[in-house]
């Protein structure tokens, strides 16, 4: 098998951090906040590495778009087993449409046979980049994947849907977006973290790709949602039912 798997990853505010809206309403506070690889992207990296370990893929290439600091998620991905990495350097924040344009250029250059990526970034919660990228490449898509099998030039993807699970069979090349149950990502061992430091990491200036990275959305404001008020404690199930009936009038 000679297939190359491209895994786009994103550096985001760590999932354990409760974000705070910036006082000027322009966004959320990211200064001094712990950053990590988007959890869904870790799952995508894991799946790509497993495909290589099973012999279904030849090489796993990770790519991220961002400032120099975004290198750390590439090193993490290489410590998990990715073979090499590409940093597309920019200081701008890109929308999914623009990200897809960049990734299309990289996927074409790399002649990727499969793109495996997280279904959603936990910062902008867009759940869109994989689908946009698949459309722009003219490739089929297997979104919200909970299992994948590569065989005979096709990939079979089990997908999480509202009422259960659906299975689709796609021609390759294809885009797969990872859902939570696809796998449990491995922890990078210390020797592998050391090894990852020596793996190749290429930096590409975003302008050199010559793609449209303009934003179509203007952020008018970012606000805190209305906080719920803490309620009361009741002492028994009977008291609860009484309150739900007479006070909340909900049953």
């Amino acid at each position: 098998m000679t297939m190359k798997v491209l895994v786009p990853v994103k550096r985001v505010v760590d999932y354990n951090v409760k974000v705070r809206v910036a006082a000027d309403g322009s966004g959320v506070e990211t200064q001094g906040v712990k950053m990590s690889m988007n959890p869904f992207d870790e799952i995508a990296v894991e799946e790509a590495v497993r495909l290589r370990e099973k012999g279904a893929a030849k090489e796993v290439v990770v790519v991220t778009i961002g400032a120099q600091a975004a290198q750390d998620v590439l090193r993490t991905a290489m410590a998990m087993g990715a073979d090499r990495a590409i940093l597309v350097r920019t200081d701008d924040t890109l929308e999914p449409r623009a990200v897809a344009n960049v990734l299309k250029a990289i996927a074409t250059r790399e002649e990727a046979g499969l793109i495996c990526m997280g279904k959603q970034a936990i910062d902008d919660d867009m759940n869109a980049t994989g689908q946009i990228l698949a459309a722009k490449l003219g490739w089929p898509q297997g979104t919200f994947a909970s299992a994948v099998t590569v065989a005979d030039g096709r990939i079979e993807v089990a997908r999480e849907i509202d009422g259960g699970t659906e299975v689709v069979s796609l021609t390759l090349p294809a885009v797969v977006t990872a859902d939570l149950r696809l796998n449990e990502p491995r922890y990078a061992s210390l020797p592998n973290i050391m090894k990852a430091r020596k793996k190749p990491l290429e930096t590409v200036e975003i302008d050199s790709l010559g793609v449209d990275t303009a934003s179509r959305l203007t952020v008018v404001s970012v606000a805190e949602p209305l906080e719920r008020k803490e309620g009361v404690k009741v002492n028994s199930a009977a008291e609860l039912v009484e309150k739900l009936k007479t006070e909340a009038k909900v049953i």
Partner: protein
Amino acid sequence: MTALVLVEVENGAVRQASRSAVAAASRFGAVDAIVFGDGAQAAATLPGVTRVLSVPGLVNDLAEPAADLLAARAKDYSHIVAAASATGKNILPRLAGLLDVQPIPDVVEIKDADTFVRPIYAGNALATVRSADSIKVLTIRGSNFDPVAAEGGSAAIETVEAPASEKSVFVKVELSASDRPELESARVVISGGKGMKDAANFKLLEPIADKLNAAIGASRAAVDSGFAPNEMQVGQTGKIVAPELYIAVGLSGAIQHLAGMKDSRVIVAINTDPEAPIFKVADYGIVGDLFEILPALEKAL
């Protein structure tokens, strides 16, 4: 301006989230509906829908032919709208890719024809965004828009040929059988967390759900532990619900879970840990052992 709404029909009835999508789209002007597979008749009776594009040949909601078809029709519309369901989230961003526009997912409020509010960071912030695209591609959160009624309209139905799908083939679907209401449209939801301790204990929720005609949900921790199937997951990456009454049993209230239920009208929490974050959002809390409280609750109802 005319909006096109992707309407999902299940067992002959329009899904509630799609009726909410029609209600949201009506804010922009006239509404056409498009229905994949059978079910155009159910969409034709939705109040506010003037025309239904029926695509009986496109079964199983495959994203590739669906997006191709929508893209071919897009120039007639100012907005293309779907519920933020698994189907909407699969197809609409792909459509946006074909049209080279930036989709706007999970809209919770429409300010005007170009300006929308959507949650980011698991609902810990609300972003108001203005789109410069000539065709807006939106998915909307059903829980934030009152649905239109199922009956009352009489739209014309136009049958449309389905494009071929060569790159993507449907293999099979496995749906969980349940007589309970859908999570997203249930009036009452009772959810279990890791505190349920195992899958068998989820049965303790059933008699209460029966009495309240409630849907049963689960936290991500409970799903990850194998106590409940994924389609029961409520949270940032699962289902978003906003019932009249949400009962959280043995779940701590992680940020990503709260993102899926904190717009519920009344929240009840049952947990042994008085410091559990779920109590911060609960209207009524009981600190105690769920294995004692659940049978008592069943009896009291």
